[in-house]
């Protein structure tokens, strides 16, 4: 019974925030903070208490650490079926953590329509948690689409107008159309899978465990896999379909960017790991070279594009594209080590990207610009912020001691065993990463100062957020074992699915 509450807490909290606004903005913020803390606490408790050696694996009915099922739409055999394994619990905890941060980081930034803002913020998180828990394909799609609407409002109503005069509404609409259209392609694929399963077994169901048993003809499997892959690739974002991301990030308020980079992108990676590979292992194995190629391209392209940006948030957005490329490679490499690395990288990128967005939000509150050309020489003008930025920039370029290093090195090591060339090419991302990360620091904080007046430093709230993230990132960097242990069983299952298909493909050649 605890799993529905993970979704309901932010949902109800959002409603309370909306109505709580009439009693003042402060109350609204506290309600939001309280419900997010509750979510984080529940997530941590689940992480601490459950046994995560249970996870879906080929050849047996999926076993879960926690499961919840209740009938919903009997006509199609749809049920509200939630389940938790090591991978989802990590994602839920990340969601809770970034939820708390996004409430705290908008404490001063958002001053108008506070109640409605927090309603949207909390509903996004509610939808995201739903995505991480759903193991009924209809329910998964439901949550997948449902989180778009509040995100749209967040960008469209509280966003900033971009530095090039692009409107926030256009950015929000672009985000919505990209995800909605690709989502419909996934819906078609889901339904096709369900009907194929129906023809074989005579049972109409959207249940993950049942659909895993479907026997698919090779051509059909490939097409259906593509349907899922396109939807996930857009959200990921994989390079040819990434152009919504920089716009959305540049225009979104800080909390929106934190959620977008920190967890919304992870839903795509999660979807691939949870659905795309296990449901279509053979097609995925066949598709793996293309997917890894796309990953390498994303790493290089994202890094180069990041280097060319003048808007600090766009730079971070492109760096996300680059970092997500590593995850894409890892998912399709078929190596357990790389998959484990992907999980660490997902968490580490969630933390570091969130921190960078929070920092650029703080910078924006002081300078009222995100344009590098108006920055420069800030190191001497304010305490703390530049130094912390340097730390997170170093984390983003994968400096040892941070979680990003662990993630990337595991991905590269794992991939190298089977795909040495891919790993070699992907390593260039590390070099290019240091170029744009240091370039960002250099342009913003060094060089001649544009003015001499000192800027206000960070207050305790702002400091606590970024320092907390820094501590977590270092912890993840020096002792990632708890995370690896938690996700081990889930990743092993996924690896068996893809690994078997890959070796089958190998022997066929």
């Amino acid at each position, binding site marked *: 019974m605890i799993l529905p509450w993970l979704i309901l807490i932010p949902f109800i909290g959002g409603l309370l925030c909306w109505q709580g606004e009439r009693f003042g903005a402060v109350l609204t913020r506290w309600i939001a903070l309280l419900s997010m803390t509750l979510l984080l606490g529940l997530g941590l408790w689940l992480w601490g208490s459950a046994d995560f050696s249970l996870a879906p694996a080929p050849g047996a009915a999926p076993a879960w650490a926690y499961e919840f099922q209740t009938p919903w*739409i009997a*006509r199609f055999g749809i049920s509200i079926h939630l389940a938790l394994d090591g991978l989802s619990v990590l994602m839920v905890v990340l969601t809770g953590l970034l939820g708390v941060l996004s409430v705290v980081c908008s404490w001063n930034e958002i001053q108008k329509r506070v109640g409605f803002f927090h309603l949207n913020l909390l509903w996004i998180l509610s939808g995201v948690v739903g995505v991480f828990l759903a193991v009924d394909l209809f329910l998964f799609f439901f949550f997948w689409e*449902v989180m778009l*609407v509040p995100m749209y409002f967040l960008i*469209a109503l509280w966003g900033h107008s971009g530095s090039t005069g692009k409107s926030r509404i256009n950015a929000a609409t672009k985000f919505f159309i990209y995800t909605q259209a690709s989502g419909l392609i996934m819906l*078609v694929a889901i*339904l096709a899978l369900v009907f194929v399963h129906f023809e074989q077994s005579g049972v109409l169901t959207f249940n993950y465990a049942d659909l895993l048993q479907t026997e698919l003809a090779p051509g059909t499997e490939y097409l259906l896999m593509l349907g899922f892959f396109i939807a996930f690739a857009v959200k990921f974002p994989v390079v040819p379909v990434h152009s919504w991301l920089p716009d959305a990030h540049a225009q979104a308020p800080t909390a929106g960017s934190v959620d977008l980079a920190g967890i919304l992108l992870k839903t795509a990676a999660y979807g691939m790991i949870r659905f795309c590979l296990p449901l279509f292992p053979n097609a995925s194995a066949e598709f793996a070279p293309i997917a890894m190629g796309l990953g390498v391209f994303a790493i290089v392209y994202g890094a180069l594009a990041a280097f060319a940006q003048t808007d600090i948030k766009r730079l971070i957005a492109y760096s996300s594209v680059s970092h997500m490329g590593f995850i894409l490679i890892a998912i399709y490499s078929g190596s357990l080590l790389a998959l484990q690395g992907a999980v660490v990288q997902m968490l580490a990128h969630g933390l570091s990207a969130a921190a960078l967005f929070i920092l650029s939000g703080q910078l924006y509150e002081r300078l009222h610009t995100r344009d590098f050309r108006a920055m420069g020489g800030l190191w001497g003008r304010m305490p703390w912020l530049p130094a912390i930025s340097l730390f997170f920039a170093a984390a983003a370029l994968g400096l040892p001691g941070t979680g990003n290093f662990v993630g990337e090195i595991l991905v590269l090591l794992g991939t190298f065993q089977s795909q040495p060339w891919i790993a070699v090419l992907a390593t260039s991302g590390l070099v290019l990463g240091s170029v744009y990360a240091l370039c960002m620091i250099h342009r913003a904080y060094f060089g001649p100062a544009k003015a001499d007046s000192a800027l206000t430093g960070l207050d305790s709230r702002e400091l606590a957020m970024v320092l907390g993230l820094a501590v977590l990132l270092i912890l993840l960097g020096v002792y990632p074992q708890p995370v690896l242990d938690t996700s081990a069983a889930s990743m092993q299952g996924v690896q068996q699915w893809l690994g078997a298909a890959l070796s089958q493909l190998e022997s066929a050649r």
Partner: protein
Amino acid sequence: MEFTTQHLTALLPLLVTGATAVVVMLAIAWKRHHGQTFLLSVLGLNLALLAIIPALGVTPLEVTPLLRIDSFAAYYSALIIAATLACLTLTHAYLGGASGKGYPGNREELYLLMLLACAGGIVLVSAQHLAGLFIGLELLSVPTYGLIAYAFFNRRSLEAGIKYMVLSAAGSAFLLFGMALLYAESGSLSFAAIGASLAAGAPAQLVQIGVGMMLVGLAFKLSLVPFHLWTPDVYEGAPAPVAAFLATASKVAVFAVLLRLYQISPAFADGWPGHLLSLLAVASILVGNLLALLQNNLKRLLGYSSIAHFGYLLIALIASKGIASEAIGVYLFTYVLTSLGAFGVITLMSTPYQGRDCDALFEYRGLFWRRPYLTAVLATMMLSLAGIPLTAGFIGKFYVVAAGVESQQWWLLGALILGSAIAVFYYLRVMVTLFLVEPSLQRRDAPLHWAQRAGGIMLLVVAGLTLLLGVYPQPLLAVAQNVGF
């Protein structure tokens, strides 16, 4: 044939609706009174709605060769009557209270015309014979001319009425010609007999031309591309509650009869008429959505969006097997609900009647900060039209996609995905307008106490139902599943 009580029971919804029209007419002749006319009409239609329950007890039953009352007819009759009821309550709010403000001319006849059109709709969905089809269609269309031109001192309304009349007559002519050709070939006018006689031999050229012409006639009424040119003008010109009626009850009735015809007479699925239908579907989806992008008038926008929605419905019609007719039942229900909500908000914004309806998009700017709940209703409707989860529209779209996938209509599904992506743009545009900072311009608003009047309560119920069905659609699906011939 002999008429027993059974037949009368089966016909009861239609009889009650007809009787209500007569009573309302007599009451108007005796004494003009707006409130009384409204009450009588609503009472009558509620009785008609209740009469469906005993009628269901005797179905399926053939009443005269023209009509067949079965669960299909009962379901769509209920939908039409309920939609008409909603339009009536909107009309009451729209025409204004007894004192000075409001519609300046005679108000009562609008109810009468709407009741007659409703009766036409019921005949149409029960028709199993081409003559029944034609009678029903004309009984539905002719009062509609009057309804659209009801605000005749407004030039646009009059223009819309005349436009609709001319094009509708042209459509009817096509329909009649097509029927004549079919009759010439098969020697019968009943759906089943036509189907049987045509199934026996290879379809002749004459039959295909006849079927094609009938499709053209019905496509006029459903405003499918390229027979859609009247739609935006008529939606814009017609008084808001009448536009709501046009978008819901009228279209549902025509689509239902098309579905019955299509399912009973296989001639409609074979040969090039089948391809024609696919072409109409793709053209409606793409053209409807693309043209909606350009609109700054909410009523025109909804007009174009309804063209696209009937394109989506055609996908299910073409699929025609498995869950297709169930999908149509669910989709039409959610579409009616959503359209009523959207037009309802426009109506309440234009209430009481002030010559011109409040339909320009800029008049809705920042509405959320003035009328939050009314805006929430409109925003829900926009999301539902776009087919976003948590709303009924999503369930409808899900069903149509499922029907398309089941019968493997990949090209049509591609058009649907493309169309939906385009559609999101203009629905979101409307939605975000509602939440923007309000302008300092002079503006029109719904009356402050809108939610305490019949129209407002109806609207809140519609919105509530839209959300409820989006989250828990099982009851609707169970009903739709049992609808059959």
